[in-house]
């Protein structure tokens, strides 16, 4: 039924909040406590199927999958947040400059941007990691650069549409400087869409980090991340499929939760959408 989600019970928003809340809770808890040590090897119980002792089973070294997935959440979420902050800050700055100043600034920035955009993001990230060696810092940097061009594009288009609005022209008529108009009228009105972009991006980054780790260039073993857990589970897919359940479900739940949350944000932050 049309309009139901507006007047009725917002199931999606609630689920989004619950999933993201659970994720953050897991990250917090895993800092101090996991059922077993995420690196603790138990050679007596390699590849144990799920049981009351090990809810999601153990891997080939007898490490508890649940504990590793919890610890992995910290790394995945940490990298997600750091990357989103970097990409959005830099992207918003460049996009706003290009969109508001137009002219030469715009042309130069966008030419470089389009060149970057022409590379597949993953390839760009792989290249960066190859140059800067492994580690969390390198991954954040690589992913930020990979996602930067699309952020710049989106922010620029938002700013371009806002700067043509009459209230920005009204600001000009008042005698306000360009910088003031940009900060006072353009940026605040662009924020909702940037916030939505950020939540969306977070999901993508978590996925990409998993992919990088899966390819073996992400988080080096033995530290757990969802991606390298999945990668490590690959040889045992036929015999010990449970190894993939916990990290796979974590990636999926995170993406779903963040996407639902971003839909909710979009709905709420649009001016005039109150009541």
């Amino acid at each position: 039924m049309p309009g139901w989600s507006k007047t009725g019970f917002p199931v999606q928003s609630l689920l989004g909040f619950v999933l993201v809340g659970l994720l953050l809770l897991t990250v917090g808890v895993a800092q101090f406590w996991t059922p077993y040590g995420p690196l603790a090897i138990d050679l007596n119980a390699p590849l144990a199927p799920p049981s009351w002792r090990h809810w999601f089973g153990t891997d080939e070294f007898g490490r508890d999958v649940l504990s590793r997935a919890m610890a992995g959440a910290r790394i995945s979420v940490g990298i997600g947040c750091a990357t989103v902050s970097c990409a959005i800050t830099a992207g918003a700055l460049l996009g706003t400059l290009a969109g508001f100043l137009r002219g030469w600034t715009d042309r130069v920035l966008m030419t470089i941007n389009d060149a970057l955009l022409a590379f597949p993001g993953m390839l760009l990230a792989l290249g960066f990691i190859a140059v800067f060696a492994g580690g969390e810092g390198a991954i954040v940097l690589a992913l930020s650069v990979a996602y930067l061009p699309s952020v710049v594009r989106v922010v620029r288009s938002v700013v371009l549409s806002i700067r043509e609005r009459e209230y920005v022209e009204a600001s000009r008529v008042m005698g306000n400087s360009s910088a003031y108009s940009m900060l006072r009228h353009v940026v605040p009105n662009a924020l909702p869409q940037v916030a939505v972009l950020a939540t969306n991006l977070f999901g993508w980054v978590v996925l990409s980090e998993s992919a990088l780790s899966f390819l073996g260039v992400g988080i080096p073993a033995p530290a757990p991340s969802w991606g390298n857990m999945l990668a490590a589970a690959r040889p045992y897919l036929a015999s010990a499929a449970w190894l993939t359940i916990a990290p796979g479900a974590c990636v999926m739940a995170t993406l779903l939760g963040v996407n639902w949350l971003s839909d909710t944000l979009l709905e709420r932050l649009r001016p005039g959408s109150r009541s």
Partner: protein
Amino acid sequence: MSAAPVLVMDRVSLEAPGAGLARPVLQDFSLLLERGELIALVGESGSGKSMAARAILQLLPPGVRQCGGRILFAGTDLAVLPPAQLRAVRGAQIGLVMQEPMVSLNPAMTIYRQLEEGLRLHRELSPGERYTACHEMLARVGIPDPPRCLSAFPHEFSGGQRQRIMLASVMLLRPKLLIADEPTTALDTLNQREVLDLIVALAREAGVAVMLITHNLALVGRYAQRVVVLEKGRIVETGAARAVLESPQHEYTRTLVASLPRRAPPRDRFSAPTRELLTVTDLRVKAPQRKDAAHSTVWAVDGVSLKVRPAEILAVVGGSGSGKTTLGRAILGLIPRAAGEIELEGIDPLTTDRRQRAAFRRATQLIFQDPYASLDPRMRVLDIVGEPLRHVRELTTGERRSRAEEMLEEVGLRGLAARFPRELSGGQRQRVAIARAVVARPKFVVADEPVSALDATIQSQVLALFRRLQRQYGFASLFITHELGVVEQIADRVIVMQRGRIVEEGAVAAVFDHPQAAYTRELLEATPTIPVVSSSTQVCVDVD
């Protein structure tokens, strides 16, 4: 009368879902429309007039439902018709013309395909006959070069032409009832007149009953036989159009009639015209170029010279495309000019001197047509009004705040300081825009169609406010409008523009009483006023 009346609406009530309780949209709405009759439905936004039309077509927006009464179209109750038969009635027997033809025409289809679509659905004609029918109808509605038009797309036409095409597509199907929902509100005066004349002529030829929905009472006098006045979903007055306009019974109708623009008595001008405030000499501004017409320059403003004295309201009138908006923007230096001089107290708006430019910005202001678009949606009313005071250096922060508060009070918005623009009505938003324009005590204000988007009663209130503030603070104004009635109400002098040039200029009374240029006469002629209807002599207070 042998056949059943075209339309009978018998105590129809509509309600919309509200918070908790259902909110009535229309209450006990009754109406009878005979073949060939033209009835006008008048009311302000939110009075339920469009809802009444949608109820006839059984096309109510989601949530709104009919909770009482019956609607009989040619004797049949449409509410009980199965969907397939209902679709055969819509379009074929009841035609609808809406306000904005750009929205109702599909931009991705040629005109022929859109016209032909209805014919194919509702009438059994061969392709050849369909083409001939479309061709003839386009010629009938006065579209030049019908064959070319048929293969063109909607964006290639002006607003007036699009509305004609829309009308053609509706009348092609020979409906029994034509519902015209604010058909000319988006058009300028000349087009408005032509389109309405056309509707009336076509309806008469084919014996079509017309329901004209409008907020413009003056149009009613010229075109309608009967009128129904709606206020907040209730019929407050109904009767012969002339009688209602000449002696309105209900208080609301009286307010509506009273808010029709009337000429203000000429003001006592300060005796000797001192120096000029603003001088514009031979201004030329290029029109935005289409890429395919690169070689010929089109001038949006083509050699305009004018002078504005301090504390004078100079109105600029003309149809759409006459260059009046461009003129206002060029004077404020918002768009570049190709040639000519502009000086406001000796300062050119495009000066490179920073200090002079700042002085120019402080002395000038602009009021936009659409207050909603011109107010930052994320700022509160008080902040919006106070923003221009940033550049009034001699005030402290506290003084700025209290000055903004005073200004709000002055425009009648006390207590709304903490609201956001979306929480205000259209009239209130325009008051905010006016407050913002006046708060820093500018010397010159360009007002670009500031009341065109407002309902009649609100319009006259906002105009009165503008005039009061103008007297109080003594700023001069370039008042751009396409409504001559507004000019009479507010301006001292008037400039008539056509295709970028000034065709006539002078004191309002002189120009309106003794128009010299043919274009001015056309504009005046096309402007509906109450006196036009009252051919009975005793009420006639015509301009002559």
